[in-house]
């Protein structure tokens, strides 16, 4: 079977130029994303400085088991997506599909666990507002506001990443033309690594404050 030539869009001279443009485009987009989350990280820094003890008290009420399990799952999904990219570069269709599906399953289990965790948080009155648990100091509310905002925004990104990966998996599975999708898979992988890296910052900042005392 001759290697199918991926189409080059009309505005580009050749494949290489198209590939360069797409890759730089994804990196630029990720820079945008970093600054989008940056506002929340700045707010976290400021308020943790203001309300140091309350943040510690709030953090102790997060669920360490759920949080840690999810961290392990996401790091593993970074590995599986990297293996999918590698398999695509080696032009191994079956292996590419397998690792994409593994990544999707890991991502889905992350969301399911997060859902159980949110359910538990709501049941323990950890949502800021009038029903916020009275057993915590006042400004633990600010901590939990940031907890919901940051993990919520991250979860949205997980869902976006899952949709992208699902679409790619279906396309690869149906078209069976791996070279045409190689760049796309690589860039989706980049995005997925970004989603994981955000979580690697969220986990210590939200779950591990003041756990030692």
């Amino acid at each position, binding site marked *: 079977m001759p290697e199918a030539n991926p189409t080059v869009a009309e505005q580009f001279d050749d494949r290489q*130029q198209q590939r360069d*443009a797409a890759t730089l485009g994804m990196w*630029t987009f990720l820079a945008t994303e970093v600054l989008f989350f940056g506002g929340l990280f700045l707010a976290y820094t400021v308020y943790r400085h203001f309300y140091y003890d309350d943040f510690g008290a709030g953090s102790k009420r997060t669920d360490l088991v759920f949080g840690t399990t999810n961290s392990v799952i996401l790091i593993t999904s970074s590995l599986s997506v990297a293996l999918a990219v590698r398999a695509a570069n080696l032009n191994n269709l079956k292996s590419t599909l397998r690792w994409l599906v593994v990544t999707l399953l890991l991502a889905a289990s992350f969301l399911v666990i997060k859902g159980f965790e949110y359910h538990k948080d709501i049941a323990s009155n950890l949502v800021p507002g009038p029903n916020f648990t009275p057993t915590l100091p*006042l400004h633990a509310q600010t901590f939990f506001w940031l907890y919901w905002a940051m993990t919520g925004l991250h979860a949205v990104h997980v869902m976006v990443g899952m949709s992208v990966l699902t679409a790619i998996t279906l396309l690869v599975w149906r078209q069976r033309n791996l070279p045409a999708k190689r760049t796309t898979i690589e860039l989706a992988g980049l995005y997925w690594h970004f989603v994981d890296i955000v979580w690697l910052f969220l986990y210590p900042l939200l779950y591990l404050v003041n756990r030692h005392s």
Partner: protein
Amino acid sequence: MSDARQNYLSAGDTVKSWLLTTDHKRIGILFLLSILFFFSIAAAAAALMRLELLHPQGHLVVPDTYNKLFTIHGVLMVWFFLIPSIPSVLGNFLVPLMIGARDVAFPRLNLLSWYLFLTGGFFAFHAVILGGVDTGWTFYTPYSSAYSNSHVVEMALGIFIAGFGSILTGLNFIITIQTMRAPGLTWFRLPLFVWSMFATSIILVLATPVLAITLLLMGVERVWGIGLFNPKLGGDPVLFQHLFWFYSHPAVYIMILPGMGVVSEVITCFARKQIFGYKFVAFSSVAIAIIGFLVWGHHMFVSTQSLYAGLTFSLLSFLVAIPSAIKVFNWTATLYRGSISFEAPMLYIIGFIGLFVVGGLTGLFLATLAVDVHVHGTYFVVAHFHYIMVGGMVTAFMGGLHYWWPKMTGRLYPRRLAQVAAIILFIGFNLTFFPQFILGYLGMPRRVHDYAPEFQFYNVCSTCGAAILGLGYLLPLLYFVWSLRYGQKAADNPWQATGLEWKTTSPPPKHNFEVIPVVTEDPYNYPPLNDYGEHEHA
């Protein structure tokens, strides 16, 4: 492309061929029409404000309406006119042409950015129709998030959505300039307009997401009453100001850098000279973009910011004047011994330089801590930033439109009338805003619908100036529309200018060039002058 008469305008005349176009030139035209709509509403709001201020007590509108007028004016002018003005209209049209490419790197994203702009614009416009917003364009918390009784959330949503359009435009330009230059077109052979668009795009991509998250947090605080900025909830309102100005000060450079790019193109063409100090002008754009990210704290000299932070921001704000001054000096040096002709674009651009110098230098007054305490929140600030945004960016936008109009439409506008319009704009602008420097220095606060009677003289001057300024905008609108039908057909290069955009037909074909050009020379390679100031005939 076999038919030579086929151009991007005649390549399809159905509504669908426009609404689903991925041609960067058509998207530029779509943006031009859309921002004109928002400009008209925002200008009408300004006109009402100026009429109200004719009299110290003001009898035209109630105070609440006045608050809404200046908010509408600010929001629409900043986000729905100035920010997309040169980048999305001229930038979209010209960047691929100038670098010898067939289109931008991501044509569909380019179209999406227009739809995002329209969707955002719809929400903003809807908020205006429902009754407007009274927070000022800055949405300071906790007023915006807790106390205002106006349509804050819908307006913020509009800006939020339009912001993603800005990000996509910036992203597209960065990638296009980086990866799609024609053979031989090295970085230092790029037209300076392209350099300035590159610098602008860096700001669009890195600053806009911060505004997005800030408005999102503000909106959530308003809707659910839980949040980060209201002191009642343990929040810090100054954090909102920091986040807001981390975007909005660099945004000022989104609103001036593209104008500076236009100046470099026009001034070389009508002085028939190579630009003086190409690399300095090019890198000063990048320097402005970078330093511009480090000066936002000068908006908070009187907002409980620490003295040391104030000192640092003051110093950094002075620093950003250096690359700006480099540009002005280099443009002036370009004029020296040039063979200058005062066509309409050149008149606008000469006006730009003068007005930008005034706006820039008064910016230094405001960056000085002690002076700022005196004039903060007065008309001095209003005059200063209008000299930059209107005197600078809008004048440059008009200059750019006049310069590239023949390329965009294939038609010429009446020359004399255009020169008259440029002069009217300059006079009207100065009469409107110079008195506001005096008013501010004397202590008239901004954003207030009435004032002490001794300020009336200057306010009447300002309102009269606004009427003249309005004429200065109306005239070009009329003869531009007229020229579409009755204007003389334009040659491919009516100004005898350098640059790849002039090497293709007017209007350009759908894919810009019959054959992708190969670049072998530096930009602005105008023939040298002999000792008598005439062009040597090579």
